[in-house]
């Protein structure tokens, strides 16, 4: 048994240096040199140099002037008592799904309330599933084309814009499957809202 200690110890040290230090730092150097935008989180910066967000990470929207993202189950520390947590949608330092099971009463109650809110906003017919369900990460940047189109009338009304123009914008922002095969049609909410702000 003792004869195994030296190789065990030396191998652990050299592989830690190789895979734990050289490997990630070499990748850091490569990424910073050749792919700096992706390496730093695909950030969107406005013309004043302010970081608005990441094109990959969804963000909470409170104003009804914008398209709404999916509900989010992320939480954050309670500002009043740091030992507790409170709901904090799209908290990008604490990704999380709801983890509610299919027969959960809490899930049924939450979805019921969300459906009623959509109905109160005037949406008829079946509610798009992504409008009332939380994503796995709580940071889903996308919504389905159906949900985006469902929001067109409301957003156009608040902004006093022509509904047809807003609808055309949404349709232009629908990203299709890669080569028509891989992935799902989707709309990036932040990209849509940024484009919306430029719409006259």
């Amino acid at each position: 048994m003792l004869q195994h200690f030296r190789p065990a110890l030396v191998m652990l040290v050299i592989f830690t240096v190789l895979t734990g230090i050289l490997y990630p730092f070499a990748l850091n150097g490569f990424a910073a040199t050749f792919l700096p935008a992706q390496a730093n989180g695909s950030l969107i910066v406005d013309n004043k140099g302010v970081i608005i967000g990441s094109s990959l990470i969804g963000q909470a929207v409170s104003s009804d002037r914008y398209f709404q993202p999916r509900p989010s189950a992320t939480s954050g520390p309670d500002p009043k008592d740091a030992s507790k947590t409170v709901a904090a949608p799209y908290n990008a330092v604490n990704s999380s799904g709801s983890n509610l099971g299919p027969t959960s009463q809490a899930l049924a109650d939450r979805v019921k309330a969300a459906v009623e809110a959509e109905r109160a906003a005037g949406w008829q017919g079946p509610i798009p599933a992504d409008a009332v369900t939380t994503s796995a990460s709580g940071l889903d940047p996308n919504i389905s084309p159906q949900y985006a189109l469902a929001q067109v009338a409301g957003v156009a009304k608040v902004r006093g814009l022509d509904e047809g123009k807003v609808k055309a914008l949404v349709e232009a922002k629908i990203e299709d499957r890669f080569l028509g095969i891989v992935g799902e049609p989707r709309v990036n909410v932040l990209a849509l809202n940024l484009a919306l702000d430029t719409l006259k």
Partner: protein
Amino acid sequence: MTFNGWLQIGLVVGLVLITARPLGLYMAAVFEGRRTLLTPVLGPVEHGFYWLSGVKPDKEQGWLGYTLAMLVFSALGFVSLYAILRTQAYLPLNPQGFDNVPPDLAFNTAISFLTNTNWQAYSGETTMSHFTQMAGLAVHNFLSAATGIALAIAVTRAFARASASTLGNFWVDLTRTTLYVLIPLSIVVAILLIVSGVPQTLLASVDATTLDGAKQTIALGPMAGQEAIKQLGTNGGGFFNANSAHPFENPNALSNVLQIWSMLAISAALLVTFGKMVGSVRQGWALLASVGVILIAGIAVVYWQESAGNPILTSLGVDPSVGNMEGKEIRFGQALSAMFAAVTTGLSCGAVNTMHDSLTPLGGLVPLFLIQLGEVLPGGVGSGLYGLIVFAILAVFIAGLMVGRTPEFLGKKIEAREIKLAMLAVLILPLAILGFTSVAAVLPSALTSLANNGPHGLSEILYAYSSATGNNGSAFAGLSANTPWWNTTLGIAMVMGRFGYVVPVMAIAGSIVTKKRAAASAGTFPTDRALFVGLLIGVILIVGGLQFFPALALGPIVEHFLMLSAKTF
């Protein structure tokens, strides 16, 4: 289910099959010590490592020596990782200023990464410093995977050699796996991931001002490199809590395809390596065919159930046409979410791109059941291959009983000693899974951790111990597992599942390697034909699965019928 969905699944399966042969043959060359494309560059490095660590690469070990070397290496890895976790506040590269990890969580996490489980009772972005992630956790992503592959190669040599006594040298196999297989593949995959948008930086986070004028802090980190080995090494321990569902870990459908391929690539190729080393690549394909059938059936069930949606939500007015979207990301869709869920548990990966706790009852039953089968579809890197060989031994034994001949596998007689050891290994799983589950199900302090009530609560417990024992690492993550009870018992279950399984398997290898090879005769049961494939499927399902059926009936199966009758808890 849609045609396009199946097309996407077929595309990934095709990619895996295309790469299995070249990668498998390359690995065979690496482990047989033949010259490869990378030898001119890596050969000197490899020999430098042997020189530094005092390893004589030509000196082979018997099964006991090989196993002891692996155990000493694992024990030392545990001690060092535990030490890093307990002292990370004093170590460099801790930009967020995280505290030292508490003892029970450090114990659980160290075992978890050491055993290739990567169960995470913590949330990565709020617990682990960059130093811990890179020099602690990511290192063991490489080493635990390399250890698994080394063991699988040792078991392979038991069948490749006749009348021999040694199985190879653990240090050589470990070094070669890491240098020639894991690091080159990880570099390629990491670069592709960065291209698709996975961050790789030492920045801890950036503050953004959202369109609404609110502040959003976005966690960053050196994650592409870790993500690559997490998938390739079937580790599954994510940089973030949401794992491969997090848009930074898995930004789009193409990165998702790459991640599923990465999970399957080495494990599938290892079956070809096995075939090549034992002198029949066809045997490797026969093993792959058996597990492929069960895996694809598993994918189909998840895809079907998730596409059907949750009738409770449908009755509230939710459109069922896109299926159950709770705990799923838009960009992956149902097909590739279902495939990810089945593959990550058919292997012992445990990465997730959808929250398994929120899957429909039968959609969630599949990952649970696949883990309980022993994760042989085609299994974690290494551990899948030796798990599958145990099932193959049982299959020829049962076939031998039926026709009254001494069973043989690849010309090696399978006798009482091998069968006893194989059963010992196979029985570790129900012992740990059902044993711990039954205790936790009646222990009030354990039950307070449940997030869901009713049968789904039992499923959460059962999933946790299945995942730990099977060294998977995925979870019904509603369970608050970061308590002393769960950290300790799950840690013990992981040790049982890894070492309690592999030590008897290595003993089998030690006994097989000494046997002489019997020439094939008219009475030999061919193990590379459809009949064997069918028999192996049956043995995996019956031996691996039936023992868990009563527990599954009380959990996901009863929940399925309750969901159909709109009962909530």
